């Protein structure tokens, strides 16, 4: 089978790579101290087998062809440097499938490549703050207490009087406190749904829930619980 044929056949690509927790044979050959010619062949096979996947990752960081190819090339260079140091890390901890591991590593390398070229993005410090988060909080509140509010009552903080701003801050603080009491999986569930806007089906896969049904069911249960806690803390409405 030619390289092109491999690239056009993701099913074969996946079958070759997706031995859960097992090191793909070409990777084993690459890292096991085989003669240079054999290692070069193994590298070529490894690249051909996973090129579609790596191109898919590169497309998450760039849209133009040249940008995608730059990112793809950067990933290959980084995977090969220091005698395949990164690939050896997979061998040392191969709990995940090689495919999944490769996507996570390649995505990290693509982000690194993007930052080297364009600098960090404004949201790059990993913390959650600012007006976007405040809007998300308001949206969550609206979702959580639908029986208490109508859409018109959700106000823009910028238009509030001073005392109302204090009330909004207290409301947000109350919500933050209540959210902190939740199980980490529930907090991630809410974040994925209301801050990252992921569909329930995708959340179900990420959190290993049986179906989107279970996501909706869990969300409904969380709304009830959060509403009860917010009311207990004196938050009767999303309006100040």
């Amino acid at each position, binding site marked *: 089978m030619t390289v092109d044929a491999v690239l056009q056949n993701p099913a074969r690509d996946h079958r070759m790579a997706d031995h859960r927790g097992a090191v793909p044979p070409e990777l084993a050959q690459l890292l096991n101290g085989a003669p240079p010619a054999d290692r070069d062949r193994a590298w070529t096979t490894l690249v051909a087998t996973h090129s579609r996947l790596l191109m*898919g990752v590169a497309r998450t960081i760039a849209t133009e062809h040249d940008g995608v190819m730059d990112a793809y090339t950067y990933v290959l260079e980084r995977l090969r440097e220091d005698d395949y140091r990164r690939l050896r890390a997979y061998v040392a901890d191969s709990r995940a499938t090689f495919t999944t591991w490769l996507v996570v590593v390649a995505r990290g390398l693509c*982000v690194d490549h993007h930052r080297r070229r364009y600098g960090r993005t404004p949201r790059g410090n990993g*913390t959650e703050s600012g007006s976007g988060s405040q809007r998300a909080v308001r949206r969550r509140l609206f979702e959580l207490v639908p029986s208490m509010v109508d859409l018109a009552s959700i106000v823009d903080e910028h238009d509030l009087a001073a005392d109302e701003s204090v009330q909004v801050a207290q409301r947000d603080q109350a919500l933050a406190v209540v959210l902190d009491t939740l199980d980490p999986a529930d907090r991630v569930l809410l974040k994925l749904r209301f801050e990252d806007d992921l569909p329930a089906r995708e959340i179900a896969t990420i959190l290993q829930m049986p179906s989107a049904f279970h996501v909706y069911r869990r969300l409904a249960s969380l709304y009830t619980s959060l509403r009860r806690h917010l009311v207990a803390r004196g938050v009767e409405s999303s309006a100040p």
Partner: protein
Amino acid sequence: MTERPDTQHPSDEQVAAFLDGRLTTNERAQVLTHFAACAECRREMTVAHKVLGPWRDVRRAPIFGLVTVLAAVLAFVVVRPIAHDPAPSAAAVRSPDRVSQPDRLAGITVVAPLDQAVFDSTIVFRWRSGGVDATYRLTVQDRSGGVVWDTTLADTAVALPRQVVLVKGQYFWSVDAQLADGGSAKAGAHQFTVR
């Protein structure tokens, strides 16, 4: 609201193992705690999940195909004995709202259409409530097991949308319920015919 992750960023190996469901309980809790507070790590994890989507689908496709075939076979085996009236009257088989004998299968009681119902106009699916706050997934399949329409709703009745055009032939419909207590219930496949 400002959140700062108070745990270390998970390693690439941990994120990959998380996506594959291979972390220990404690390690998974630690990673989730971090994801809850670190938008950047959460974003990277979800991007990786999206990229993996087609590959995961490829892995599942043969399994789903097999399940579909098995479901079609099962529907034939299960549904045909339920067709209890060997010589129904014309009025009975052509009434979409025939509700005289609700059929209870595995917890959800189907009201209409019952087996052998024949339609030439709007099809309304009805079933008994599974309890307060239950939600339902209705699936309509053709004879080959292919899903021609499915929907999720909290109500216990729904009409087939106009934009879903069923060609003449036999179909099967089923309801899966998610109950308020986290349990689930099913109504087995029922047959109807579009003429």
